[in-house]
């Protein structure tokens, strides 16, 4: 019972850790409602920067491009990444398995400048015009590995006898995957998609290398504005993004909680009858 009693040290280190993580974000949100242009001076509450943002065509266009790239690349990356996860966790022996494992894990830690540079040089070598398509291809490549890792960890804990049972009952591997495996690993696949989508929305370096005219992404836009000096509009953009993410995360948590409650009820039912 005493095993999880928290000491003063534990509490202090957690408070410090979380304060460190959240204070900068909190400040950003607060100052997005600052009437003053100066970040350091509080000039009263105002939504002026949000209105300004609405009129900033450049930022809005970039946001739209980012969203499209994110949706397409996350979806393709999820399909490819899930396939790779299945290949690595279900087929223990095929030629090139070691190579594939390397190609899945290396991009996870590969410095972005190198990934960006290498993809750009590929696109130049095959004479592919840089733009929306190349950014999307690049994002698929670097996010799919993250999907693979997420899905693979779920497949590891997956009861293999369920797949055996499906095949034993006459389902081909394809049918088994779609009717048994996929419905059960669905939360991990969704989490993989979310991760890929977030990474894509967030990426500055790889996009800077692989994009071309007309396909400027939001991080690139933010970066160029930040380098010119702090603009309160950026605070507003950030706040909106943080709000979207928070709503998404809270919704996911609530859904998960509801599932757990239902599961607990089912188990009670099972014990009773």
């Amino acid at each position, binding site marked *: 019972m005493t095993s999880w009693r928290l000491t003063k040290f*534990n509490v202090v280190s957690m408070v410090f850790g979380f304060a460190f993580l959240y204070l900068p974000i909190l400040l950003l949100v607060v100052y997005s409602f600052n009437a003053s242009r100066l970040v350091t001076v509080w000039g009263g509450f105002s939504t002026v920067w949000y209105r300004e943002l609405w009129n900033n065509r450049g930022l809005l266009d970039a946001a739209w491009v980012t969203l499209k790239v994110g949706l397409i690349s996350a979806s393709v990356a999820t399909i490819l990444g899930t396939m790779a996860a299945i290949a690595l966790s279900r087929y223990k022996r095929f030629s090139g398995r070691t190579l594939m494992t390397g190609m899945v894990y290396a991009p996870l830690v590969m410095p972005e400048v190198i990934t960006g540079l290498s993809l750009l040089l590929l696109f130049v070598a095959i004479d592919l015009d840089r733009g929306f398509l190349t950014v999307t291809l690049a994002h698929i490549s670097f996010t799919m590995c993250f999907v693979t890792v997420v899905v693979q960890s779920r497949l590891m804990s997956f009861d293999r006898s369920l797949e055996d049972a499906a095949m034993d009952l006459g389902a081909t591997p394809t049918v088994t995957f779609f009717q048994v495996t996929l419905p059960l690993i669905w939360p991990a696949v969704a989490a993989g998609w979310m991760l890929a989508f977030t990474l894509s929305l967030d990426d500055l370096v790889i996009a800077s290398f692989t994009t071309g005219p007309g396909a400027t992404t939001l991080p690139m836009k933010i970066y160029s504005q930040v380098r010119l000096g702090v603009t309160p509009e950026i605070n507003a953009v950030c706040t909106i993004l943080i709000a979207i993410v928070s709503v998404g995360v809270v919704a996911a948590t609530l859904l998960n909680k509801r599932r757990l409650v239902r599961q607990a009820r089912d188990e009670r039912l099972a014990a009773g009858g």
Partner: protein
Amino acid sequence: MGEAAAPETIDRRRAGTAETRRGRSFGSRGFFRIVVIGLPFLWLVGLFLVPFLIVFKISLSQTAVAMPPYLPTFGDPATWWSALQQLSLDNYAWIASDELYFNAYTLSLAIAAASTVLTLAIAYPLAYGMAKAPPAWRTTLVMLVILPFWTSFLIRVYAWIAILKPEGLFNQLLMTIGVIDQPLVILNTPIAIFIGIVYSYLPFMTLPIYASLERMDHSLTEAAADLGSPPLKTFWTITFPLSLPGVVAGCFLVFIPAAGEFVIPDLLGGSRTLMIGKTVWLEFFTNRDWPVASAVAVVLVALLVVPIAIFQRQQARL
């Protein structure tokens, strides 16, 4: 041997076979396997391995005022042999001769190592507290560690500019409470880079450590206490060694990307602190010297190949 014996057996077999085979022509044995292995494999070869080989090849080329800005190009197969002979190690010699690159590499590795240690120092107590928290809280605490990760990396780094600059909130705070009279110069120094890296990579260190601590059997520390070991000694002899896999994974997840980091040193470190990620960027975008940029990148990968390999081995074992 005896299959031909009972005729009814054979009849039943035919009926059974026909029944069980209906509608299965599509699932020819290796179809699923070929697609599932083949597609991602080809993609990774085409958009990870081949690009990397191209980087390597271009690092052996010469700069040219052309598009693409390097020579030779392997366009016409007839000229491949002469093109091959033009490849040289000149760019590597250049990198070796100029102190700027050497300094950038050592600075990058040093900053990455130092920030890894700092991150560990903050992440371990945090993860330890989380693992000791009541089970009902733990999901929420993990969520709280992950949540900042979902918000834009760029934005989080940007937030620190407002905090750290001379007239920023940190200096204001310190001056208000009277610790200092003159604003501290933090922004555009390596200290700002440390703060940025620790801040951005904290979840990558915290989560693996938490995972290994949480998995640990609590009865082990109870057993140690029961056998007369005081808490601190129990921590160093039992808890810490068992959490090492998490610590190692976390360190690699921080060190390797931090060594090649571009955004944090660029925004927080100022122009005087030149790390290698920035060098690649400058060579490529500002100097338009693609071959040197490629060579710098190849050397960076060569430096990181050992840690990357260890990281992979460890991941593959999990």
